[in-house]
């Protein structure tokens, strides 16, 4: 049962509390305008992410997960509803919300791996050059790309590119880390290593992360809260809380995985797509 049944009252009440919602997504509808069509990606989605949450968005392909993440990132404005981060409404992208995109072409092709990771640190003047390089090398080591540190992106494999993007996002140590299927292109071991790195990092710095993934097992492993979305247009189906309370127990995790799976795919999958023009 949701603790908060009246969101407005709750926000006011929590506003001065220490654990105020860091990200507050309220009745958000997101639409794309194409040259002659209006596509609704998500419809009336509300949720809050608290400080140090590891929040996972889970839903079928095309349900609007990437779109939601982009809206939190400030790349698109909700048609209806509001999004606030740290109490301030999101109006534009910013380095407080670092995004790891789903696409492979998110690296700057004109910079080496090292400089790609250093770039946001320098561009936002967060660190001087020397420290930035140090920090960048540290995270490149973490994603196991030490030897590719001076390579240009076009010489990397798909999974390597994504790992650079992950390193870049993590190195910024943002208020909120937004990750769109960052581990999808990774093999089992690398994936587990990355997950472990993420969790270990979280243990150290308790940052907040919003994470899109397709793997229910991955969601259970890394999250403490999971938001389940219905197919096109994406609507909130349910939220799973205290996911981390079962981390250790394998059987329980299996049961949870099955339960989420059933919940998510109870109805036959709706075909996402567009009305013909």
């Amino acid at each position, binding site marked *: 049962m949701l603790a908060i049944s009246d969101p407005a009252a709750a926000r006011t009440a929590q506003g001065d509390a220490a654990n105020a919602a860091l990200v507050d997504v309220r009745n958000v*509808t997101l639409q794309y305008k194409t040259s002659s069509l209006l596509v609704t990606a998500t419809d009336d989605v509300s949720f809050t992410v608290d400080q140090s949450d590891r929040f996972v968005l889970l839903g079928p392909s095309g349900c609007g997960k990437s779109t939601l993440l982009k809206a939190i990132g400030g790349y698109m404005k909700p048609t209806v509803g509001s999004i606030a981060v740290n109490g301030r409404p999101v109006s534009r992208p910013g380095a407080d919300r670092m995004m790891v995109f789903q696409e492979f072409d998110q690296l700057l092709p004109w910079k080496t791996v090292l400089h790609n990771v250093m770039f946001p640190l320098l561009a936002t003047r967060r660190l001087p050059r020397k420290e930035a390089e140090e920090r960048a090398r540290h995270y490149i080591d973490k994603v196991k790309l030490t030897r590719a540190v001076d390579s240009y992106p076009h010489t990397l494999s798909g999974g390597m590119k994504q790992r650079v993007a992950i390193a870049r996002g993590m190195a910024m140590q943002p208020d909120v880390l937004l990750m769109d299927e960052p581990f999808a292109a990774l093999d089992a071991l690398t994936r587990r290593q990355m997950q472990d790195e993420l969790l270990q990092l979280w243990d150290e710095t308790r940052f907040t992360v919003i994470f899109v993934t397709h793997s229910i097992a991955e969601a259970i492993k890394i999250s403490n809260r999971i938001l389940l979305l219905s197919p096109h247009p994406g*609507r909130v189906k349910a939220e799973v809380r205290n996911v981390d309370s079962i981390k250790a127990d394998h059987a329980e995790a299996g049961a949870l995985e099955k339960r989420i799976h059933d919940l998510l795919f109870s109805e036959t999958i709706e075909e996402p797509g567009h009305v013909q023009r």
Partner: protein
Amino acid sequence: MSSVEFVMADEAGGGRGGHISQVERKLGAWELLWRVGAVRKTLIILVLAGAWQLYATYLNNPLLFPTLTDTLEALYRRTMDGTLPARMWTTLQILVSGYVIGTLLAAVLTVLAINTRIGTDFLETMTAMFNPLPAISLLPLALIWFGLGPASLVFVLIHSVLWAVALNTHTGFTSVSQTLRMVGANYGLRGLPYVTKILIPAAFPSILTGLKIGWAFAWRTLIAAELVFGVSSGQGGLGWFIFENRNLLRIPDVFAGLLTVIIIGLIVENVIFQTIERNTIARWGMKG
């Protein structure tokens, strides 16, 4: 700590308003119109026109820079007496043939360049050599090869269009993503079908820019070339019209000619090129 908790959406607060009547709907006609930007562009043109009028009035040197109203008056007069339309027609005919041939040659050259290494070198070398050459340098050869007719003008036009279009097209081709190239190769496309079915659409933004620049330079060259080349009396085009009136110091008529060039430029840009753009790269999401 408590164990895993499920909160179903319909139990949760913030009820689904159902305020979205349709998941997808057509955009309104007005919204589409505003996007075309005709309104904003008209405004810019009006501002420029006003600036022209004011500056020319202030300058008060009609033999150097006439007012817009004088120019419009001349434009009207020379349109009504049939001179301008006739000159325009002559020019457009030559312009279009030179442009089309130049573009086709550019296509041939870039197809060769993209398919063979020596073709690339050839294109690069030729472009570097001939692109900077002024048209007059081609004059003697053009006169020998094509005589004094429009053929020589077309030749010079080709020279002006070819390199710009080829350069842009070639850059466009070489910037096509590796993945798309591989997709094309996968279907066994090679040579011309590969170029027309993969490279040209994929490089369309660059090609369109090349075509725009080529078009503009064809104009510039033609206007200039008509002065240099033999025009048989009375048959000249717009360039000749401008030159003739300049020689006769009928400056408002000169500017009427230039205004015609501008107007045609605006029409071509905003009707032809914009339409192409809207139906291609804009629709394909290739324009940011």
